[in-house]
């Protein structure tokens, strides 16, 4: 075969391979476009439009949604004054989500450790117990939690029955209720990655640490926690992010009085009929999460380099 025809054959093969590759990648690309890029694109576009009178949007550019997030327009003279209402909802949400993450970590770590140190054949049973709540709808579970913590609920009946308190504790429709609900809802997301990390932990290292004069607390802090760090980070991310945007829990257990970001956004698409502002708030939330993750990734990368 001549050199020229060889080159030609190669080019044909390469083109055919490229086409096959594109064809095989198509389902993945379509999926990503459909479930990620497209909705996000719509949200971005909507956030820069003008709200319609009966919901929806009118196709008229406006950055009002982002201005509204920080400033309030005086209805008489149209001047802008700083408004911290939305900021404070964001801060409250971040605080609640952080608290719930910490709570889930404190509850989840001993739980995961307990499961990871069980004999191998018993671990699946305990993991099953942990994931059991997922078999029921979140709404129903949240109502169940509502029944447990309300004034005439299980917790108060028991505490009063034992004589610890003589008036029911008002937990429902407070931040505490939302906090408890968030921990309850997202605890499995903490336990599972923690378990995955602890299960891989070489317990001979724990023995070595005891042998080298570490007491329980020192061994936990210096050996177990550092080695379980990937699981701790994954668990915290998996609890914090959905916790930040939680909707059902604050709606039901917080009584809708104490707003979290999720509820505020929902209101914009419902009674407030301000879709652009709802879109803008959703994007600001997302931006915050992405920034937080980037900061973490950078810190983790720096640490890995320092070790390497």
């Amino acid at each position, binding site marked *: 075969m001549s050199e020229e025809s060889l080159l030609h054959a190669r080019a044909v093969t390469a083109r055919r391979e490229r086409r096959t590759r594109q064809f095989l990648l198509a389902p993945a690309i379509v999926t990503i476009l459909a479930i990620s890029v497209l909705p996000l694109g719509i949200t971005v576009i909507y956030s820069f439009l003008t709200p319609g009178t009966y919901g929806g949007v009118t196709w008229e550019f406006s950055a009002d949604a982002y201005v509204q997030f920080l400033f309030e327009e005086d209805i008489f003279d149209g001047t802008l004054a700083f408004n911290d209402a939305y900021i404070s909802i964001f801060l409250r949400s971040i605080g609640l989500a952080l608290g719930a993450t910490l709570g889930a970590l404190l509850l989840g770590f001993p739980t995961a450790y307990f499961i990871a140190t069980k004999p191998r054949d018993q671990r699946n049973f305990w993991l099953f117990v942990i994931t059991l709540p997922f078999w029921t709808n979140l709404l129903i579970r949240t109502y169940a939690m509502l029944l447990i913590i309300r004034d005439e609920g299980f917790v108060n009946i028991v505490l009063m029955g034992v004589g610890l308190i003589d008036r029911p504790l008002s937990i429902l429709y407070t931040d505490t209720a939302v906090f408890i609900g968030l921990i309850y809802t997202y605890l499995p997301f903490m336990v599972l990655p923690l378990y995955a990390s602890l299960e891989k932990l070489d317990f*001979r290292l724990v023995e*070595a*640490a005891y*042998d*080298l*004069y*570490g*007491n329980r607390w020192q061994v936990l802090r*210096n050996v177990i926690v550092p*080695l379980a760090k990937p699981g701790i980070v994954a668990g915290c991310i998996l609890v914090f992010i959905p916790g930040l945007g939680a909707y059902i829990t604050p709606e039901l257990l917080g009584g809708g009085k104490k707003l979290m970001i999720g509820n505020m956004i929902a209101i914009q698409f419902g009674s407030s009929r301000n879709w652009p502002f709802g879109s803008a708030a959703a994007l600001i939330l997302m931006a915050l999460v992405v920034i937080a993750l980037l900061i973490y990734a950078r810190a983790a990368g720096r640490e890995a380099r320092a070790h390497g």
Partner: protein
Amino acid sequence: MRALDDVDIDIRENEFFTLLGPSGCGKTTLLRIIAGFELPTSGTVLLGGKDITALPPNERPVNTVFQSYALFPHMTVAQNIGFGLRMLGEPAGKIDERVSRMLRLVQMEPMADRRTDQLSGGQQQRVALARALAPAPKVLLLDEPLAALDLKLRKNMQIELKSLQAETGITFIFVTHDQEEALTMSDRIAVMRSGQILQVGSPREIYDAPTHRFVADFIGEINILSGQIGAASGDRAKVTLKDGTALEARTPEGWTGSGEVAVAVRPEAARLAVGGEAATIEGTLENLVYFGAASHLHLRLGTGEEFVIRHSGATPGLSLTPGARIGAVIPPDQARVLE
């Protein structure tokens, strides 16, 4: 099922003491009891006269070199070595000084800031050793620490360990299933089988004067002949083998057995009968295995038992071809009656 049964040993200060036995004999369990990882169902562990049986591992002045090394993967070599001292709350200055001394001791100074997964097996071994020695324990436990190393490295480490023990003056309790390792390194050896200690003694005692058939068999090569015990006087007794051959053998101290006994003879303790010498036993040469420095002659005795002679040098007037009739001389104090 007991992992350990009626184990009673005294280990002396500054001693290199080895627990030797096949896997599953309980030597590692014994080590874990001394370290504090396991509680004995009954019995006590005394350290310098003090009962430490119930103390947790972190309160015993005993450190372990683990078979798997168990180095902390999230710490550098220096951090690993300093771990014990950090846990004890020693001041930073003292830790640094001690760590650099340990690094020097195991010749790992250039590796101080490496992570442990960047080290070779031999280097990890040294770090594990330095880490266990850094807090200056009263006793150092070593759980088959050389098992994962290749032969040449293992030989080097054997010598290094021995000199390290002499240098630090710390009591070493070493666990191994490798009899050669035990013989080269130890001051004393305890041979274990199924949870029991069969014999405790210096390597020479264990090798030259095994008291149990198992000990004799486990350590080095040995010929074991069965026979009937006859007249005894002092520590000597006459043993008649199954084919009627009689030989003289040493009996264990204070021994009063009778009837059927086993007699052990090391291959190098027997020699060929030459020039019309009176042979103690006779057999047919079945096989000759040449090693270079010596040969092993495999004889088939009249009793049907096999007998191996280690032989070196010339053999005037003897033809060492398979089928030849060969006589062997066994000096009386080289044959031993086993318990």
